[in-house]
C-alpha cells in the first residue's frame, strides 16, 4: 500500500476536496448555496424594487410569473422576492459574523485552556460551565434591551456570546488529545516557547474539526436569529430578515399564505443546504471514509 502513497501526492485537504466532490448531495448543496448567496448579494442591483419601496397598485398580490412581482407582495405592496433576498442577506451576514466571532473566541479559549492544563484549565472551563448554565435566551434578551434594539452589532455579539461556549469545549477536547501526541512533546523538547506551540502546532491541527463545526454553527445562528426576530427582539421593520418576514407572514397566513411560505421555504432550503454541506465536509475530513 505504501507504494500508492509514494506515487500519488495526497494531502488532507486535497483528499477532502476529492471526497467532497464525490458526495453528490453535498456538491449540489454547495452549488445551490452559492446561487442563493449570489442572488442575495445582487438583489438590489437586479430588481427595480427596493426592500422598503411600496407599490400601491399591487397590495397583497399572490405570486405569479406574469405579474410585476414574481413572488407576490405583502400588505404594504413591498416585493416579497426582494424582501426575502434582503432577509437572506441580513441573516447570512449576521450568522457568518456571529460564527466568526464565536469561533475566534472559542478556539483561543479552548486551546489555551487545554494547553495550559491544571488550575488555569479548571478555572477557564468552569467559567464556560457557568455561562452554559445561564438561560441563554435571557442573556440575549437583556443584551438586546440594554442596547439599541435591532442594532446589527449588538445582535451579532449576542449570538456570538452563546456560540463560543461549544466551540471552546470542542477545541479544548481536541487540544487535550493533541497534547499527548509526540509532536507537541517534540516541540517542547526543541525549546519552542508555549505561545509558539499554541499558534504553530495546536491551532492548525484543530482547524480541520473547527472548519466542519463552523458549517454546522452557521445554520444554528440563522435559526437563532430568525427566532429572535420572530419574537421581535431581532431585526426591526422596515429591515427584512427571514425571521421577521416569517413573523409578519404568519399573521396573514389565512388570507395570504404566500407571505409566510416564501420566506419559510427559503429558510428551510438555506438550512438544508448548509447542513448537507456540513455533513459532507465532516465525512470528507474523516480519513476512515476513504
Amino acid at each position: 500500500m505504501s507504494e500508492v502513497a509514494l506515487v500519488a501526492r495526497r494531502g488532507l485537504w486535497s483528499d477532502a476536496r476529492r471526497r467532497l466532490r464525490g458526495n453528490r448531495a453535498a456538491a449540489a448543496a454547495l452549488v445551490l448555496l452559492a446561487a442563493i448567496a449570489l442572488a442575495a448579494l445582487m438583489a438590489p442591483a437586479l430588481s427595480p424594487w427596493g426592500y422598503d419601496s411600496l407599490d400601491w397598485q399591487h397590495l397583497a398580490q399572490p405570486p405569479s410569473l406574469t405579474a410585476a412581482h414574481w413572488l407576490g407582495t405583502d400588505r404594504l405592496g413591498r416585493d416579497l422576492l426582494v424582501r426575502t433576498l434582503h432577509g437572506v442577506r441580513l441573516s447570512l451576514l449576521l450568522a457568518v459574523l456571529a460564527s466568526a466571532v464565536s469561533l475566534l473566541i472559542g478556539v483561543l479559549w479552548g486551546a489555551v485552556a487545554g494547553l495550559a492544563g491544571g488550575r488555569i484549565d479548571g478555572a477557564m472551563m468552569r467559567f464556560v460551565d457557568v455561562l452554559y448554565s445561564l438561560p441563554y435566551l435571557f442573556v440575549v434578551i437583556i443584551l438586546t434591551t440594554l442596547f439599541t434594539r435591532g442594532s446589527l452589532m449588538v445582535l451579532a455579539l449576542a449570538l456570538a456570546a452563546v456560540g463560543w461556549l461549544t466551540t471552546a469545549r470542542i477545541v479544548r477536547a481536541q487540544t487535550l488529545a493533541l497534547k499527548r501526541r509526540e509532536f507537541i512533546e517534540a516541540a517542547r523538547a526543541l525549546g519552542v516557547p508555549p505561545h509558539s506551540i499554541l499558534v504553530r502546532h495546536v491551532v492548525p491541527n484543530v482547524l480541520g474539526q473547527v472548519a466542519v463545526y463552523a458549517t454546522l454553527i452557521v445554520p444554528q445562528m440563522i435559526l437563532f436569529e430568525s427566532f429572535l426576530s420572530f419574537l421581535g427582539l431581532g431585526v426591526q421593520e422596515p429591515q427584512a430578515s427571514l425571521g421577521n418576514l416569517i413573523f409578519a407572514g404568519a399573521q396573514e397566513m389565512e388570507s395570504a399564505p404566500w407571505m409566510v411560505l416564501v420566506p419559510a421555504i427559503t429558510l428551510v432550503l438555506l438550512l438544508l443546504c448548509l447542513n448537507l454541506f456540513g455533513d459532507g465536509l465532516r465525512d470528507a475530513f474523516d480519513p476512515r471514509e476513504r
Partner: protein
Amino acid sequence: MACAMLSIPASAESPGATPVLSLSGLSVTFDTPQGPLRAVQEVTLSVSRGECLGVVGESGAGKSQLFLGVLGLLAANGRAAGSARLDGQEILGLPAAALDRVRGARVGMVFQDPMTSLTPHLTVGEQLIEVLRRHGRLTRAAARERAQTLLERVHVSDAARRLAQYPHELSGGMRQRVMIAIALAGEPQLLIADEPTTSLDVTIQAQILALFAELKRTRALGLVLITHDLAALAGVADRVAVLRHGRLIECGPVAAVLKAPRDPYTRALLRDAEPGGGVPPAASAAVDAPRPPERTAALTLTDLGVQYDIRRGWLGAAARLDALTAVNLTLRAGEALGVVGESGSGKSTLARAALRLLEASSGRVVWMGRELAALPARELRGLRRDLQIIFQDPLGSLDPRMTVAEIVAEPLRVHERSLDAGSRGAAVTAALARVGLSPGLADRYPHELSGGQCQRVGIARAMVLGPRLLVCDEPVSALDVPTQQQVITLLAELRESSGLALLFISHNLALVRRLCERVLVLYLGRMMELAPTATLFAAPRHPYSRELLAAIPVADPDIQPARLARVRVGEPPSPLSPPSGCVYRTSCAQAGAVCAERVPEWEEPGAGEGIACHRWREIS
C-alpha cells in the same frame, strides 16, 4: 511458486494427513485510484493439523492481506481470487452468513494489538462467555466454567478473578492470552495469529511463543504464525513460507529455510534476525578502542525519582506510583549508554526526567555543571539546543500540518533567529542530506513518507543544531527490521562523526548491543545492573539480566525449542504495590530469604559498573 505439503517429508508425518487449509493460486487485488494494486500474487500453500506454518516477510509483503483475503475480511476495495479450501470445502466467495460461521467456529484469529481487539467496556468473562454461547448453546453457568478452563489452558494466572476484570486492567501479555483463549473458544481447526508478539516485551514474547508451541502439540490444530521476525518462528514453526512483494519466494521445513536458505532475500532476513544484526557491530569498535578515561561527565543524574499520585475518583485516597526510584548515573561526553527493561520499567520516564520534559519528584539532573531543575524556563529553552530527543512513533512525532522542510527548520527558527530564509533552507537541505534523505522530499508532508523516512526526518530535526546529547526513546521499535538496521547504522555514523553522547532506550537488546558502550538494566523503575556492553552480554551478573538475554529468540531451530521450553510464566508485579525488599524477587529463580527483607545495595564491582542484588556473588 507452490509450497505443497506432500513434497516435504517432515510435514507428511503430521497427525492429520489431509491439510486443514490449502490455498492454491491465491491472489489479492486492491482497486485504488491509481489502478489495481496486486498485494498477493498466486500463492499456493497448505497447513495440516498439528502443524505450524510460519509466514514471514517485511511489512507490505502481503502476508496479512493473504489471510484476510482467505477469510473475507479485506477492505472494501479488495478482492481475493484463486482457491482456498478449509477441510476440503471451498471458502472463497462464500456468502457472508456462511463465512461468519467459518470464522470463529472453525478458524480462530489473533491479532497484533490485543487492546484494540478487545471491547473496552465489557469484562473479559463477558466477552469470552458471549463467544462460547454463540458457538456452543451453553447455559450461562456452563459457559462461565468453560471460560475459566480456557483461561487456565492459556496459563492466565488467577483465572477466576480475571473473568471479572476489564481489558485495561490486564497487562499486554495477559490480554494477548485472553485473545488466544477467545480464538480457541469455538474449538477451531485452524488458528491464525498475525504478529501476535510484535507489540510485546521480549520476555512476554517468549512466553506467548512457548504457549503457541504447546497449543500446537496438545490441541492438534493447524497454526499459522505471521511475523516479520524469523527468529520468533524458530522454536514454534514446522515449516516456513517467505513472502516478498506478494509472492511466495521460498518455502520449506524450518530447519532447511533457517539453516540453508536458498533465496538471497531469506538470507538477508536471517541476517537481520541474528542478535547483533549481522552487520559488524558499530559499538564493538568503540568498546575495544581504548578511550581516554578522563572524558568529562556530561549528564549526571543523582537519586533521580519520579512519582505519580493516582487518585481514584474525586475524593478517593491517592495511591503513589513510583515510576522511577533512585537512579544514579553519569553519562560521559560522547558516550553511548543503553537503557533496557520491559514496558513499565521506567525507561521512558527516565528519558523525559533527564531532559526535564517532566518534573522529577526527587533528585537532581546536572548537565555540564548546571542543574536543570534550577534553571528558569527561558534559560532552559536556550539549553535545549544541546539536548535533543527522538521518539518512538516516527509519524506521531512530526506535526501533520507541516512539510518536512518546516519541521526540520523549526529548531533553527527557535534558536538561530538571525538566520535568513535562504541560509535556513541551506541548513535544512544539509541536515536532510546528512540523514540520507533527498532534498526532493522537503515539501512532502509526514503522512506521505514511509516510517523509516519519518524517523530520519525526526533525526534530522534533532541533529540540525548540532546537539551534544541525543536521547533516543525506542527510536526503531515501530519500524520493520531492515529499516531498523538502517536507522541504527545512521545513528552510529552520526555519533562517530559528531561525537555526541547517546542515551539509547530500547527493549531490543540486540540493537543496544550494536550501538552502546554501557548498558543500564531497569526493572520496575529501579536500577538492576549497569555494565559495559561486552560484559553484560558475555557474563550477566543480575538474574534479571540473564532472563532478558535468555528470552531473545535465536534463529536456530535446533536450540530455540529448548529455550522456549525453559520459559517461566510470570508477569512483573504492579508498580502500585511493588514487592518488599528486592522488587525482582517475585520473578527471580534465585531469590532467598534476604531478598524479601532488604532492598539490595548498589554495589560497584568496577568503575562505571554496578549491580543491585544480594546474591550476585553466590550465583555467578
